[in-house]
């Protein structure tokens, strides 16, 4: 984007203003009428997210408040992902509370506030706004968990809060050194200043390594990536699907956006083996490697659907980080494309899981013969599972292929980057191995059984989600070019020129 286009323009915050107003109104409604029908509130929430998505597509690019927030194509891309995930979570919330006489009335306004913070995070052009918005993404989610009507909700919220505090302070510890080195909080200026410091003062010791280690461990803790994954187990097992789907997909993508802004943008000069000991490239590659191997090894042991999805998510996040760590024009493009594929499949599966849970399903074995009781549901579930597996003609195939291609193209740049071959090989082996597991589950949906599951009725909001996600999964699987071209703008925004 031309610098002249980045003029001060408060109009760029119109979708955020809409979300903030909606959150305030819905909070007032929740206080004054706590027993209001969740279906009515849910439809209002879906309308707000749909309207905000339309606004995001039309608001001009530019900056606001001295570059605290910059609206550019990459921010627009991530904002649409967060809004879509908010929309899907509202539909799951409506399904979960169809027959609930005392739903949590604050869940929807808090969800909207969290999406608002994520949108601001994707626009943040400054370390201060980045840190604040990353914090504000988590606080509403902690409150949603705390307000649940279960005996252990307070305990889960306490743990969630402690982990978020620890991770935030670790990230801030790393940020403090970046601020100290660059003397600037603006991400663009920081990138330039750190590069100048690197060129003029070769002896900066292990300061960058200390900063990278603190920030990376903080971000891994927030995203519950292995080896810091255990805190998320109780949260996933004891909360409704509307919350866990949002945390597992939107919140994790928000953390990855923060990672991209801090590492790919801010620490651009310290990537590669020649920067040893301050190289962050191999460190982050190792994180992706561990996530993929750990997730792949564990999905075979899972019998329940929720833990199965949790371990499957590790593999998907590992793939996204593999794309991000491939520092060429295809890397970020493939990672952004993978985020959409992951979001569509995970949202679809969590929606179906919320339907099945209300009918008493909790284990993978219960899905056997689902086709003979709920034809539409089983076919859509099969499409999502095959997309996660990477079957051709689904978006998952193009996503996996483009990530592995980006990793290989980075590995062939120079001898020094040959370690990327290991990551590409791991990703390929994982894709093959997980394909077996996903195919096994998919085939079991169509297997004949004497105890076929009972028929499940699909409510209208869930139908909307399934139609959107299935259509997008197949459409972008057959015609990926428009989405790939859109994702390529993210590479450009981060300074990678397309050939």
């Amino acid at each position, binding site marked *: 984007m031309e610098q002249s286009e980045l003029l001060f323009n408060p109009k760029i915050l119109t979708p955020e203003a809409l979300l903030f107003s909606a959150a305030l109104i819905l909070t007032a409604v929740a206080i004054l009428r706590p027993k209001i029908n969740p279906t009515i509130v849910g439809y209002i929430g879906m309308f707000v997210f749909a309207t905000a998505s339309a606004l995001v597509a039309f608001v001009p690019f530019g900056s606001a408040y001295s570059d605290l927030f910059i609206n550019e194509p990459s921010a627009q891309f991530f904002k649409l992902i967060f809004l879509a995930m908010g929309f899907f979570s509202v539909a799951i919330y409506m399904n979960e509370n169809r027959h609930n006489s005392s739903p949590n009335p604050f869940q929807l306004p808090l969800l909207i506030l969290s999406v608002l913070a994520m949108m601001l995070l994707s626009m943040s052009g400054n370390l201060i706004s980045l840190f604040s918005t990353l*914090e504000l993404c988590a606080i509403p989610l902690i409150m949603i968990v*705390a307000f649940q009507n279960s005996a252990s909700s307070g305990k889960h919220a*306490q743990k969630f809060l402690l982990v978020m505090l*620890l991770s935030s*302070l670790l990230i801030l510890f790393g940020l403090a050194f970046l601020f100290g080195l660059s*003397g600037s909080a603006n991400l663009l200026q920081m990138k330039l200043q750190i590069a100048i410091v690197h060129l003029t003062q070769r002896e900066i010791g292990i300061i960058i390594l200390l900063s990278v280690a603190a920030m990376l461990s903080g971000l891994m803790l927030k995203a519950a990536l292995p080896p810091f994954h255990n805190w998320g187990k109780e949260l996933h097992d004891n909360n409704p699907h509307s919350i866990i789907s949002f945390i597992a997909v939107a919140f994790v993508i928000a953390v990855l956006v923060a990672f991209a802004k801090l590492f790919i943008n801010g620490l651009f000069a310290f990537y590669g083996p020649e920067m040893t000991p301050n190289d962050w490239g191999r460190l982050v590659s190792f994180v992706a490697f561990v996530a993929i191997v750990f997730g792949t090894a564990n999905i075979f042991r899972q019998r329940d659907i929720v833990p199965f999805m949790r371990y499957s998510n590790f593999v998907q996040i590992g793939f996204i980080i593999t794309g991000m760590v491939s520092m060429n024009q295809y890397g970020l493009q493939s990672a952004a494309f993978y985020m959409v594929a992951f979001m569509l499949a995970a949202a679809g599966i969590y929606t179906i899981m919320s339907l099945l849970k209300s009918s008493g399903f909790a284990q993978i074995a219960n899905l056997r013969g689902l086709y003979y009781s709920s034809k539409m549901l089983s076919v859509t579930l099969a499409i999502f599972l095959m997309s996660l597996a990477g079957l051709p003609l689904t978006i998952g195939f193009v996503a996996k292929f483009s990530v592995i291609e980006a990793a290989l193209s980075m590995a062939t740049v120079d001898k020094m980057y040959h370690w990327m071959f290991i990551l590409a090989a791991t990703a390929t082996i994982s894709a093959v191995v997980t394909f077996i597991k996903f195919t096994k589950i998919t085939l079991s949906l169509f297997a004949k059984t004497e105890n076929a599951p009972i028929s499940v009725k699909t409510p209208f909001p869930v139908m909307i989600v399934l139609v959107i996600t299935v259509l997008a999964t197949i459409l972008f699987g057959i015609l990926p070019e428009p989405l790939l071209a859109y994702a390529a703008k993210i590479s450009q925004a981060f300074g990678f020129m397309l050939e």
Partner: protein
Amino acid sequence: MFYYLSLAVALFTIGVFGVLSRKGFLGKLVSFIIMSNALIVLFATFNRYIKGDGVLGLIFISFLILTVLIELLLGAYLVFQHFSKSGNNQDEGISLFS
């Protein structure tokens, strides 16, 4: 500058050690306050020695205090909620990594 940075790193390490070793929720929250103090020292040092009379580090500090304050208030609410729900006023242990 070196002494201030050493103080900040030492305080931060003590805070991390406290978070990992204390079992109770309140004990962990107090350790977070020590870590926050370390970060305040760190930003104030960088602001004084790198930026001269700049205010950027102070803005960082004010945002840090604000966010930690919000989270501590939320933590206080959670403690109150837990005590009133369970009727038990013991600060039970929380393990962050299991």
